[in-house]
């Protein structure tokens, strides 16, 4: 909502400075978005008159002018290059020392080609005010020299733009803002009284309402014999200053009241109304052309104004082109209506239009204002356009808007945290227009002013379905009992200023609080730190990707496709953050940074819900170093990332098994699934599928993993038994087994581990070999076994026995033989 200081002064009598006004607006909830002072930059420029203009003796294109620019500059010689400089012309003069914004220079007194020049005559472009520059600006002939040009041109006014929150429909008019400022102690609200204009005849146009849910009350009157020319300068200037284009006196008047009182009006050209009746009714799928030249289709929920010929206005939103006022309009019919805010909001959203009018109706206009607003508008139309007014015609009736609200003074302290004396509270409410109905020591009951649609409204609840009926009813009763009181608390605090409320620390329940994170949440924080410490860098990717992309990664169900995506490549909830990571690899690689490690901890979406996924990738090559060439990233790095992370999250690696059925975006022969038991899939890992990388346009090798932390069993904090630390040296023995190639290595290692649980403390792989000396279709697997005796050193015979046991166990499980 834009307004100028001078417009504010129409309603507010105040000595406050601009800074004070802005500070107060901010305090009371009318947030200042911007303050534009167009006059400040051109303050030094003066109006002037050229007394005489002679050709410059030393230059063909220059003239030497004598200029009168008022006191101090009554006869200044100025050298001027403009062809239109001539004797008697009223001009804009920049005295020495003036900064000229359009030229970015500061004027100095001096000599030009030998002739003294004590200033500059300017074009509007040089003032930074316009584009045209055919010489210097020509002011009206009767312009008095020596005035500030900014004042003269009405540019001295400061434009303030404030953000109006949806509850404050009353502040969508300058008068409402003035009222709030006056209540906050910044001056007094000037009285405003609409003078009644006597009706001279019966209006030839009358109202009818067939859709009272949308329009409870409408007023109107005909003014005949008007002349609709341009509106006077004061009105044009007011509208222009807040960014509105003046159109014609009649239209400008409606716009003026829209912003002055927050009261939308509409004018019909009475001659263009078919028949004598305008009806507020439901639309019926008709098309009509609005004032913006666009065609709109109106439905049965939309409220329209129709005459015999059809729809002439989308009520409260926009008038129709066919019946709009033009320069030829002679008889005008003025509409002043009340519309239901919800109906207007929904209609405006349906047709996709937000007008100054609908904006106000949606937020609620003053239901008591129509009568006086119509009088004021009639008066102004007759003043500016002439003509005479009919009697007022109406349909429907003023809806009951009267409401009371009660404030217990203690609630200011108990809810608002501020002790406000009762007298002061009442005084502030009265300044806002509340009227005291009754009062005692503890509380006051006030009536709510008609313009405050946001206060003491009937509560509308949307209570949760699972709440027991008695609990819900009691809660609803509570709202009915105290909501309007909270409204009043807010009003008093707003005017007092929230800075007055003393800050109080939250009461501590205990000095050292419990952990803020659940064990599961803490585990994700740990996962982030762990992966970053392993050299991967964290990213955050959008939760939506393109559905084509999603299809390559496990599916793009319709139920997870946005109905209104912002871009076609951001239309599907992602099935895995791996998609974002690969996109990141692609972009970084394209910039020349292909050797990367990235991870993301974020949601993955599926039809049965979302779950967090920890995904990581490594791309490109390992770094080169003397003695070590750069190697393509290896799937073992990805498996290690996943395994190590699972271990960090509390999973015993011995409890895991690896299967080879990773999803299709991985290389089928170089990927795996880490499982705990047959059902729980904890992670995928592997090389990304080469054809996927090709499709993505990624030309560096990529390995990665996806880990499902919610499948990892919840961390348990169990008391550990004391460790048994043996006093005896462990014994290490190497075994090489020849085993069929298709036997998973994991199976063999597990068999070794399980062969003699009392003694086998560790099994590690040191060799895998295929080739000469190993039968075709077989490979040799070398493992080092650590045997840890607990009670005594092992004898040779015992060692021999254990070795045989291990070989037997492996042979039984895998068919392997000792090499």
């Amino acid at each position: 909502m834009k307004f100028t200081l001078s417009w504010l002064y129409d309603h507010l009598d105040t000595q406050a400075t601009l800074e004070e006004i802005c500070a107060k607006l901010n305090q009371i909830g009318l947030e200042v978005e911007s303050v534009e002072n167009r006059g400040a930059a051109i303050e030094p420029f003066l109006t002037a008159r050229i007394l005489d203009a002679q050709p410059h003796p030393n230059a063909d294109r220059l003239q030497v002018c004598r200029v009168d620019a008022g006191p101090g500059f009554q006869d200044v010689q100025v050298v001027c290059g403009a062809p239109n400089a001539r004797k008697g012309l009223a001009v804009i003069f920049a005295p020495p020392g003036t900064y000229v914004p359009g030229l970015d220079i500061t004027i100095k007194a001096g000599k030009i080609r030998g002739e003294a020049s004590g200033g500059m005559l300017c074009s509007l472009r040089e003032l930074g005010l316009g584009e045209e520059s055919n010489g210097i600006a020509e002011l009206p002939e009767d312009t008095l020299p020596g005035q500030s040009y900014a004042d003269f041109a009405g540019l001295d006014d400061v434009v303030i733009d404030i953000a109006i929150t949806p509850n404050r429909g009353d502040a969508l008019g300058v008068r409402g803002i003035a009222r709030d400022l006056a209540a906050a102690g910044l001056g007094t609200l000037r009285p405003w009284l609409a003078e009644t204009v006597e009706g001279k005849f019966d209006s030839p146009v009358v109202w009818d309402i067939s859709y009272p849910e949308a329009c409870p009350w409408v007023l109107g009157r005909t003014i005949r014999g008007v002349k609709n020319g341009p509106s006077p300068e004061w009105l044009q200037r007011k509208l222009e200053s807040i960014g509105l284009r003046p159109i014609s006196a009649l239209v400008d008047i409606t716009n003026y009241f829209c912003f002055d009182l927050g009261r939308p009006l509409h004018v019909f050209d009475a001659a263009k109304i078919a028949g004598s009746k305008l009806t507020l009714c439901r639309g019926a799928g008709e098309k009509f052309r609005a004032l913006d030249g666009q065609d709109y289709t109106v439905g049965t929920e939309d409220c329209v104004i129709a005459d015999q010929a059809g729809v002439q206005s989308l009520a409260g939103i926009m008038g129709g082109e066919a019946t709009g006022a033009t320069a030829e309009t002679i008889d005008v019919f003025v509409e002043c209506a009340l519309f239901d805010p919800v109906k207007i909001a929904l209609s405006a959203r349906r047709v996709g239009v937000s007008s100054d009018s609908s904006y106000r109706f949606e937020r609620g206009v003053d239901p008591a204002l129509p009568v006086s607003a119509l009088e004021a508008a009639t008066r102004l139309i007759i003043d500016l356009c002439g003509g005479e007014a009919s009697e007022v015609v109406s349909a429907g009736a003023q809806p009951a808007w009267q409401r009371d609200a009660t404030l217990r003074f203690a609630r200011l302290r108990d809810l608002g945290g501020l002790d406000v004396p009762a007298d002061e509270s009442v005084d502030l409410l009265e300044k806002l227009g509340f009227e005291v109905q009754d009062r005692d020591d503890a509380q006051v009951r006030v009536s709510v002013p008609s313009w405050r649609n946001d206060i003491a409204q009937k509560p509308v609840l949307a209570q949760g379905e699972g709440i027991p009926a008695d609990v819900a009813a009691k809660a609803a009763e509570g709202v009915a009992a105290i909501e309007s009181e909270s409204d009043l608390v807010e009003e008093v605090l707003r005017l007092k200023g929230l800075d007055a409320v003393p800050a109080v620390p939250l009461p501590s329940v205990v000095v050292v609080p419990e952990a803020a994170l659940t064990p599961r949440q803490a585990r994700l924080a740990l996962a982030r730190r762990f992966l970053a410490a392993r050299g991967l860098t964290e990213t955050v990717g959008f939760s939506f990707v393109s559905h084509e992309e999603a299809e390559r990664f496990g599916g793009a169900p319709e139920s997870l496709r946005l109905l209104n995506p912002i871009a076609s490549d951001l239309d599907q909830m992602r099935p895995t953050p791996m998609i974002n990571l690969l996109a990141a690899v692609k972009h970084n690689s394209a910039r020349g940074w292909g050797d990367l490690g990235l991870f993301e901890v974020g949601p993955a979406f599926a039809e049965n819900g979302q779950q967090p996924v920890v995904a990581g990738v490594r791309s490109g090559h390992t770094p080169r170093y003397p003695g070590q060439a750069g190697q393509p990233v290896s799937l073992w790095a990805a498996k290690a990332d996943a395994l190590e992370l699972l271990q960090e999250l509390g999973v015993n690696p011995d409890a895991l098994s690896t299967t080879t059925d990773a999803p299709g975006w991985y290389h089928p022969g170089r990927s795996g699934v880490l499982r705990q038991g047959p059902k729980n899939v904890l992670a995928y890992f592997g090389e990304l599928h080469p054809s996927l990388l090709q499709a993505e346009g990624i030309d560096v090798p990529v390995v990665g993993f996806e880990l499902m932390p919610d499948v990892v069993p919840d961390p348990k904090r169990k008391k550990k038994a004391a460790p048994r630390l043996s006093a005896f040296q462990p014994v290490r023995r190497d075994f090489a087994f020849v085993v069929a190639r298709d036997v998973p290595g994991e199976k063999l290692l597990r068999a070794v581990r399980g062969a003699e649980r009392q003694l086998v403390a560790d099994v590690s792989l040191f060799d895998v070999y295929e080739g000469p000396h190993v039968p075709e279709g077989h490979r040799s697997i070398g493992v080092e076994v650590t045997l840890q005796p607990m009670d005594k050193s092992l004898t040779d015979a015992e060692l021999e026995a254990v070795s045989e046991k291990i070989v037997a166990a492996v042979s039984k499980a895998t068919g392997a033989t000792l090499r």
Partner: protein
Amino acid sequence: MSNDLEILRQEVLSELAGATDLKAWDAVRVSTLGKSGRLTALLKALGKMQPDERKARGVALNRLRDELTRAIEARGKELEAAALEARLVAERVDVTLPPPPVERGYLHPISRTIEEMTAIFGAMGFKVAEGPDIETDWHNFSALNTPAHHPARTDHDTFYLPPQPGLDVTRVLRTQTSGVQIRTMLAQKPPIRVIVPGRTYRADHDATHSPMFHQCEGLVVGKGITLGHLKGCLIEFLRAFFGKPDLPVRFRSSYFPFTEPSLEVDIGWSRKTGEIGGGEDWLEVLGAGMIHARVLANCGLDPREWQGFAFGMGIERLAMLKNGIPDLRSFYESDIRWLRYYGSDPLAPALLHEGV
């Protein structure tokens, strides 16, 4: 000393001098003092001598043995020292070369900022609550006193999803994490203190808006919680978060459908330098208010019994302010150079006792 002993002495000493490595030295030692060494042989021969001869010869032999033993040991040490010296010279490398590179990883500024918020609010007794990104219309709007026609809804630019088969519920991508407030109040009895950091979505994409961003909401429900507590809590948070104990904080009246009174919070800063806490200007950082009676009742809480406050702030916005990050969009572009520049050290998590 007998002549033969002197000869042996000279011989051994000269051999020792001639031994230039430990191997040669060891040969001299063995051939002198070893089992079948020359001196050992002479000592063995002592037993066959007459007692009177034996005495004098024994003394001389012992003296010689002592001398040669010392000489051999000394030469051995010399040679060892020389060998070590030679090894050290041979083993010298160019230590000015860099070590093999180890990739460092970093945490994203968003998760760092969430960690900091969690640490500070955690110290005030808040727990972290979470909820789904795909919310019902009711959780995201209606329960928060924002019915379908409410003008605030048009400000939100909501993303919609098709209804789930068989369920007549409008689904949206949450425009705020406030739905989790509702879930929390429905699920647990007050007193409640939670913060809700998480992803939020609005259909808006330009230099200062991203279709996905992060918010951290807070909710306090109790008995006797007032706007004074709201102020105390948020001032404490902001001062701790920005590490400025004197940070100016300003509260302005505002409006949100789900709070009353509602307010916005500004902090002092300098528009010119961007310095937080300095200068004459104010910068909006969060919105807050006392929970609206209707919101409490929508969750089954009697507003006569329970009251409290809620607040919400943009995580990227606070991260940008604190770390001087100029562009919102860069948060999601995953440019490794940016991530390394603004990312944080995983081994220095946000711990109050180490400073956030």
